[in-house]
Structure formats: structure tokens, C-alpha cells
């Protein structure tokens, strides 16, 4: 059998033959990226992990349908996006209060306490939590296609073509979605972009 230059494709061919080791390797390579996408798209860590698991179960179940002509990450994120859309539709049909959400009297408080293991002071930690909540909120308010395009754009591995394949639209449409999404985010997050509060969040700066 011909060796594949794309290691993911080679692993998937092994998964098609029922190779669990190859499946484990695929999860080790891509679970974090899928979880990040779902976490930032849904804003719920537990749900993101559950859905990530479902994404990989779906990958295993549908392995026979995978064709090497398609890039594995494109296929993977298409599954992830579909499951994410299902979850968003389910939420729209059955709106429920999250146990993580603050009660109405504390609406101004950060939406979620993000555990931060860096040895920053409490002020920095608070700023960081607030900032993350604001970014998450701004992302959450974007239209789904714009949010997905922006989150996939963060993935170094995905080109515009790959993102277009995941979203099922043209290359131009992807560029437009990213541009419009970023413009909205810049408007929403302007105070943070100006004051430089993000500097606490990025040790490189």
C-alpha cells in the first residue's frame, strides 16, 4: 500500500481497518484543537468536552466513509461544526439556565471563573478572568458562521480553503466572514484594545 505524506490520512486508513492505536494517536493529535473550537463556540467547558468525545466517536463510526482526497482536519472540523450546530439548535429549543451562570443580582460579575495556574497577583487574575469573559461574550454574540470562521482561522493548520470546505461556502465568503467578524469584535472590544488591559493576559507583551 502506498504511504501517505499526510500522517492523519495514514492514521485514518488504519482506523478504517479497526486499529485502535491509530485512533488513539488521532485523538492525541487533534482532541485539544477540537475542544478549543467547541469551548469557544459554546462557552461551556463540560459541554465542549462531551461534544469533543462525540466528535471522535463519530470519526470512528464514520471511518469507512472517509476518503483520503479530503484533508482529515477539514473532515474532523466539519463533524465538530455539525455537532456544535446541533447543540446550538437544541439550546435554542430548550433554553436552560447554566449552573455556571451568575445569578441575576451578580450579572456584572465575570461570567465564569477561569482557573489560572500562572503565578500572577489577584488583580491580574481578576482582569484576565474579566477579559476572557468579555471576549467569550463578544464571540458568542457573533453570527454562527462568522464565529466559526474566526475560531477556525486561529487554527494554524487550516487554510482559507479548508475553512471554506468546513463552512460549505466560497473562499471569498470565508474572507468576508472573517473580516466582518473581526470588525465586530474590534468594535465590541475597543476599550480593551485601547487600554491595553490584555497585556496582563499575554506574558509576551
Amino acid at each position: 500500500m502506498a504511504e501517505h505524506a499526510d500522517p492523519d490520512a495514514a492514521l485514518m486508513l488504519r482506523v478504517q481497518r479497526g486499529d485502535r492505536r491509530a485512533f488513539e494517536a488521532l485523538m492525541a493529535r487533534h482532541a485539544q484543537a477540537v475542544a478549543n473550537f467547541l469551548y469557544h463556540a459554546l462557552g461551556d467547558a463540560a459541554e465542549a468536552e462531551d461534544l469533543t468525545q462525540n466528535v471522535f466517536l463519530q470519526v470512528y463510526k464514520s471511518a469507512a466513509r472517509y476518503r483520503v482526497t479530503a484533508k482529515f482536519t477539514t473532515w474532523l472540523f466539519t463533524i465538530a461544526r455539525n455537532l456544535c450546530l446541533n447543540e446550538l439548535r437544541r439550546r435554542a429549543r430548550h433554553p436552560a439556565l447554566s449552573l455556571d451562570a451568575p445569578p441575576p443580582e451578580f450579572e456584572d460579575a465575570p461570567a465564569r471563573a477561569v482557573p489560572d495556574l500562572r503565578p500572577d497577583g489577584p488583580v491580574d487574575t481578576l482582569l484576565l478572568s474579566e477579559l476572557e469573559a468579555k471576549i467569550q461574550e463578544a464571540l458568542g454574540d457573533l453570527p454562527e458562521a462568522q464565529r466559526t470562521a474566526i475560531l477556525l482561522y486561529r487554527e494554524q493548520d487550516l487554510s482559507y480553503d479548508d475553512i471554506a470546505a468546513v463552512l460549505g461556502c466560497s473562499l471569498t465568503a470565508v474572507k468576508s466572514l472573517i473580516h466582518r467578524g473581526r470588525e465586530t469584535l474590534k468594535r465590541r472590544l475597543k476599550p480593551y484594545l485601547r487600554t491595553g488591559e490584555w497585556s496582563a493576559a499575554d506574558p509576551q507583551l
Partner: protein
Amino acid sequence: MNAPQGPQLLELARRRPLTPAERAALDAWLAQHPEARPADWAEELALTRLLAALPPAPLSPRFVENTLAALDRREGKPAASWASAWCRWLAGFQPAWRWAGAAVLLAAMLGGWQFQQHRREQVRLAESILAVSTLAGDLPDAAALAEFDVVLHLPDGPLPDLEALARALE
């Protein structure tokens, strides 16, 4: 691989924060091509940093093991296992063969249904014949019905006087 050049670095700067070397190369390129500098470049860079600063999803260290266990649970169910094996077997065929197989299966099912209908019809007919033959015991003899049509077509009205007829024939 070649290091990314000006326009590529501009693109890259929207995707992730640049390394100091990349940033220096981009600044040098923008100094030579000031017309390429976007109007809100500082905000663009700041937004990229903000998005990059989003924390990764907290994923359980046992994620892989948990997923494999979930897979085992799914495959452990006899119905699911049978169904998934069937699906895997089916997925091994080209779509044209799958359609052809489905057509043959449908034709076989239709044929089977028609055969059953035919059999049912035959049984019903046999039962009808049996019922008729049971009733036939109470009917008059076939010889008595030989003139049935003639009798049926006799005109309505008073019957002829049979004794007078007999006398006339003598």
C-alpha cells in the same frame, strides 16, 4: 522553507501574534511599503493578541481513555454492534452497487409479497369450494334442475290446469 514575506506576514499577524523576528521583518517591510499598512493596524494586532490569549479548553487528562471506554460501551451493545458491523460492511461497497443491491432486495420483497398474496387467494378459493360443496348436500338433484332455464322463463300468471291438460292429451 522560505520565511514569510511582507503580505504573508500581514496575513499571519491576523492569525497569531508574530515572533519578534517576524515582527521586525514586517515592520521593515511596512516601512518600505507604507501604503500597505492598514488604517487600524494597531487594533488589528491587539485583537489578534486578545484572541490568542483565550485559554485552551480544559480537557480531562483521561480524555483518550474515556473516549475509548465510551466506544467500548457503544460497541458492547449487541444491537448497536450488529448495526455498526452491518454499516461497515455496507460502506465497503461503491454507491452504485449499494443501489443495485437495494433494488434487488426490493424486487425480492415484492415477489415474495405477491407469492404470499397468490397463496392466500388459493386458500380462500379452496375454502369457498368446500363451503359450496357442503351446501350442495341440501340442494335438489341435478336432474331436477335440468329444465331450470325453461321454468325460469315461464310467463307470470295463473298456472295451467294440469288435470284438464292431462284429459286433453288422453
